[in-house]
């Protein structure tokens, strides 16, 4: 109750501050339009924003541990978050500046119009792609390598139960967590990428085929897709994974293959819808008519005439679809039915280390482990979404 009262009091104080700000502004600037026409909500917003910013800066410089050496976990986490935010903003800014000076004329122009969020997204995607491809070189140890030292705490400080050999510590059977985190990029992102490509190949081809041929094929495919889309995708994936796990038996790697196929089929229904809709708009064009009269085959029509004209919407959809697939796979792994154990994977890592979060008050680094793996998933989807959002904004031409 006390906290609630304090909150209300703070809000009242901020409201009073907003009124004072507007009133003082009007008096000092002799009713300049900025202050004269300022709604109260805007003044309130300014004061609230300033207060929050001031509080954040004050909180950032609080000591990270008290005299007895007990860590002040709240400050530690806040510092990490703030540092991450500032560093990523600077990195995105520098990356955009680099893109504006280096490269072809087209790419320079692209970077000039780019908002900071989009350049951050591009940077994140590049870093993830690099990590995924060169994981074997970047990781200090192998992903399945088991060491004698189990449950080493993160931090690399021998005094607090760490080990400089394992900066993020080891898990309960002695595998290096940093290496597993890096290999996770390869496995989780790689599998999601393969699945999305498969979904696009399947859904795109069938969608364009339905749009070009129409008739009964279109009807059959569309109704089938309607039915599949009526079942929520995560539920359907879980149902099919039950069956797949029975089919796979003790062959764990087979289950991963089945998962790729299942998610690809489920997600291809969404791609089918889009490809068919886009395709239907294209097949009525004159150049398709001309190609048909020339006597071109179906393959030529789909891949040489329709596909190049449908690239823009499909590309944006690819980004979004990748996010959905990636999140679905991560969720399945988190629930324990996704990517199977010997492979390092982020969803499984979150599930395995989730209970560490309760130690946050004593050892912030340990508690950060599940958040690190979950944050790795979140960062990539956020980055891709930033890029897609900008692409959609650009193509829709929404300016207001």
């Amino acid at each position, binding site marked *: 109750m006390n906290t609630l009262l304090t909150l209300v009091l703070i809000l009242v104080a901020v409201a009073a501050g907003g009124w004072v700000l507007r009133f003082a502004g009007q008096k000092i600037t002799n009713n300049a339009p900025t202050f004269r026409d300022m709604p109260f*909500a805007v003044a309130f917003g300014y004061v609230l924003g300033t207060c929050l910013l001031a509080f954040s800066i004050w909180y950032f410089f609080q000591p990270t541990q008290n005299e007895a050496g007990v860590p002040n976990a709240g400050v530690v*986490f806040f510092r990490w978050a703030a540092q991450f935010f500032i560093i990523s903003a600077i990195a995105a800014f520098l990356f955009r500046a680099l893109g504006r000076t280096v490269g072809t004329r087209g790419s320079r122009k692209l970077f000039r119009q780019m908002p900071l969020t989009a350049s951050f997204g591009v940077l994140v995607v590049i870093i993830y792609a690099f990590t995924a491809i060169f994981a074997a070189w970047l990781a200090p140890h192998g992903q399945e390598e088991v060491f004698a030292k189990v449950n080493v705490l993160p931090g690399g400080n021998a005094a607090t139960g760490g080990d400089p050999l394992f900066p993020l510590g080891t898990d309960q059977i002695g595998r290096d967590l940093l290496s597993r985190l890096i290999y996770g990029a390869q496995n989780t992102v790689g599998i999601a990428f393969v699945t999305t490509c498969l979904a696009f190949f399947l859904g795109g081809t069938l969608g364009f085929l339905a749009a070009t041929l129409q008739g009964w094929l279109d009807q059959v495919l569309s109704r089938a897709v309607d039915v599949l889309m009526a079942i929520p995708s995560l*539920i359907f994936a879980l149902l099919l994974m039950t069956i797949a796990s*029975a089919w796979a038996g003790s062959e764990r790697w087979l289950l991963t293959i089945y998962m790729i196929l299942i998610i690809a089929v489920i997600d291809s229904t969404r791609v089918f819808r889009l490809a068919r809709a886009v395709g239907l708009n294209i097949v009525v064009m004159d150049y398709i008519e001309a190609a048909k009269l020339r006597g071109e085959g179906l393959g030529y029509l789909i891949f040489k005439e329709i596909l190049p004209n449908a690239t823009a919407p499909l590309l944006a959809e690819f980004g979004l679809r990748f996010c959905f697939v990636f*999140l679905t796979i991560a969720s399945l792994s988190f629930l324990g039915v996704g990517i199977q154990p010997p492979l390092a994977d982020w969803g499984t890592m*979150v599930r395995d280390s989730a209970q560490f*979060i*309760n130690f946050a008050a004593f050892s912030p680094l340990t508690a950060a482990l599940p*958040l690190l793996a979950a944050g790795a998933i979140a960062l990539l989807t*956020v980055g891709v979404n930033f890029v897609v959002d900008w692409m959609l904004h650009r193509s829709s031409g929404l300016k207001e």
Partner: protein
Amino acid sequence: MQSVIRIILQRLALGFLTLFVVSIVIFTAVNMLPGDFAQAILGQGATPEAVESIRRDLGLDQPPITRYFQWLGGALQGDLGNSFAQANFASFVGADSGVRTTVAQQIAPRFANTMFLAAVTACIAVPVSLTLGILAALFRNSVFDRATNVTTLTSISSPEFFLAYVLILFLAVLNPVLPSLSNIFEGMSFGDRLEKTLLPALTLTLVVTAHMMRMTRAAIINLLASPYIEMARLKGMSPMRVIVKHALPNALAPIINVIALNLAYLITGVVVVEVVFVYPGIGQLFVDSVKIRDIPVVQACCLIFAAAYILLNLLADILSILSNPRLRHPK
């Protein structure tokens, strides 16, 4: 008016047809399981007689089509069969007490819990996202608009468990204001229940708010170029009044639609959140049954999720027809 009723009836019929086909899909999928449950549960020491007995006990010796209609008929009357995991295989040794936990008994309280969670989330998420959407449209392209945009985009694209653990970290571990485990049981007072439900509800709010807020903003901004908005502005109305009185009523159709879609998401997308918070809802039961391959429960949960999803989508469809005169009177 006649045509409206006809369209709605058509949609309803289509919805039930879809549900019927979906039930066939679910049943077929489950019946593609290799081997059978009797074999699996008895393990290596299964004698043919014992397997036969269990198969007869669970009705697995009937042909698939008979079993499908038995299942569907039962499901329509609220009888979803007996859970395999809960069944006592006492009958084939002649010691059946006749008392069994049915799937319906297992699901009913959990379904109520899930609906409660969805309701609490909706009560928080809908007003918050509408307010944020209207404010973002009002102060479009300002710092506030951009900050809200980036924040909601971040929260919608993060996995649910990331948001859940961040909330647990800050609201349950570092500042213990809310419990991180939602152990809900019967006979709890409403206040206690609400307190235990609040953290999962907040997580789900973060997930669904972004979509609704962005849709509200986009729907309102789409209308701002219309002549009647221009008129209202020239009349000297304040920007807030222009949006709330003139733009919002006309933007309601897409907003209602997106709210209904998000409610559909809430009922079906709770699986991960329920697992994180150990919330005793239907999603948790579903995941547990998936792990032990308890087929009747998996089937029943799937059917319920699909039904809720289809019905809410149908509702969204019908509401958007009702709120749009152009769709109400098709040419």
